[in-house]
């Protein structure tokens, strides 16, 4: 059994978070992960307060274990969904796409543990000072919005920069990734791509099959020109987008408009032509659609075997 300061503080059997993914991380998946002993997370994405409140309540019906909510700070409804968290009090709030400092005091006062996703040491230090319980150091191997640093470079630097627990994210989909993250100083991991193929994940079956069919070099980063780099599976959508991105005659607004709704088309409609299938570099390591519980159990059994045998390397 692997226990860390993180799993102990949050009452988790396994120190693993399921990433908050727009159109993917709904109550059913979050509850399945929490019931399996990890921390399930509902994505507030760009949705309004009513959606989030309904999802939180649905999750409470499906599990009595702790779960979290991910707040996307660029959401047009960010103030409303931040308030819903204060009222509904999920155990954890994770944040992405910005600095959450303006909301942190209210969440902390409500007894919520705030755990922002950070792509740099400076951001980690700022949120630590504002009372963050932990940080998620997410490397650019991950799917969705990505920073420049890789997980193996970012995690130890964040571990050195702050005193709070660090959760490693990006590029982790099996026991080897978990063991490596712990060796880098992380107290837990966050996985997203792997859970796309959980039985309980509601994304369209085309999305799951695309992840399972993916090979190592099948993800690509788009949107760097707009300062919104996003990693997804290579498709006709990403090919067309990249052509436009490198075409100087395409304006920033045109490029922005091209991406609108593309994730929904992938996740809800399974639209292979126009959908943007967000996934990390580990997509090729996901081979089957399984219950979240099986994924997590196998992952931590693997990590435990590796960590127990780690002394093999020391003579």
């Amino acid at each position, binding site marked *: 059994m692997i226990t860390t300061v993180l799993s102990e503080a949050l009452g988790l059997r396994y120190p693993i978070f399921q990433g908050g993914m727009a159109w993917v991380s709904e109550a059913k998946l979050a509850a399945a992960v929490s019931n399996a002993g990890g921390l399930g997370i509902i994505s507030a994405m760009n949705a309004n307060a009513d959606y989030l409140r309904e999802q939180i309540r649905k999750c409470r019906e499906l599990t009595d274990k702790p779960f979290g909510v991910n707040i996307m700070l660029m959401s047009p409804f960010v103030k409303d969904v931040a308030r819903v968290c204060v009222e509904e009090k999920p155990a954890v709030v994770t944040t992405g796409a910005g600095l959450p400092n*303006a909301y942190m005091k209210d969440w902390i006062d409500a007894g919520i543990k705030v755990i922002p996703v950070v792509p740099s040491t400076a951001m980690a230090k700022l949120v630590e000072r*504002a009372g963050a319980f932990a940080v998620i150091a997410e490397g650019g191997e991950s799917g969705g919005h990505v920073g420049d640093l890789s997980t193996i470079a970012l995690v130890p630097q964040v571990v050195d920069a702050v005193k709070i627990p660090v959760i490693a994210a990006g590029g982790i989909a099996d026991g080897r990734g978990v063991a490596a993250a712990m060796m880098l100083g992380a107290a837990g991991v966050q996985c997203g791509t792997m859970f796309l193929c959980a039985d309980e994940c509601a994304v369209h079956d085309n999305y799951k099959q695309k992840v399972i069919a993916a090979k190592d070099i099948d993800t690509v980063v788009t949107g760097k020109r707009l300062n919104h780099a996003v990693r997804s599976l290579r498709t006709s959508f990403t090919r067309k987008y990249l052509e436009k991105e490198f075409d100087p005659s395409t304006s920033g607004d045109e490029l922005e408009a091209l991406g609108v709704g593309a994730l929904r088309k992938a996740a809800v409609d399974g639209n292979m032509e126009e959908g943007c299938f967000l996934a990390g570099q580990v997509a090729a390591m996901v081979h089957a659609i399984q219950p979240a519980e099986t994924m997590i159990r196998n992952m931590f059994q693997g990590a435990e075997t590796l960590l127990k045998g780690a002394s093999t390397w020391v003579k």
Partner: protein
Amino acid sequence: MSTFETIAKLIAETKDLDINNIKPEMSFADLGLDSLDVAELVMNMEDELGVTIEISPSLKTVQDVVALVDEQKK
């Protein structure tokens, strides 16, 4: 060097900008700074100026930061 000049220098260094194009009334968004850049800048300013800068919604322009720093240095 005035507080504004010091801060303008740090912004210019953080984002590789021409210092002459940085004006007090400009917002972080005008300067093309995203949250990652702002975090970096705040840490650099704290090291250089020996102050503590808490990020808040009222901190929008270069002048806002200058005022905050001057207040702390009194």
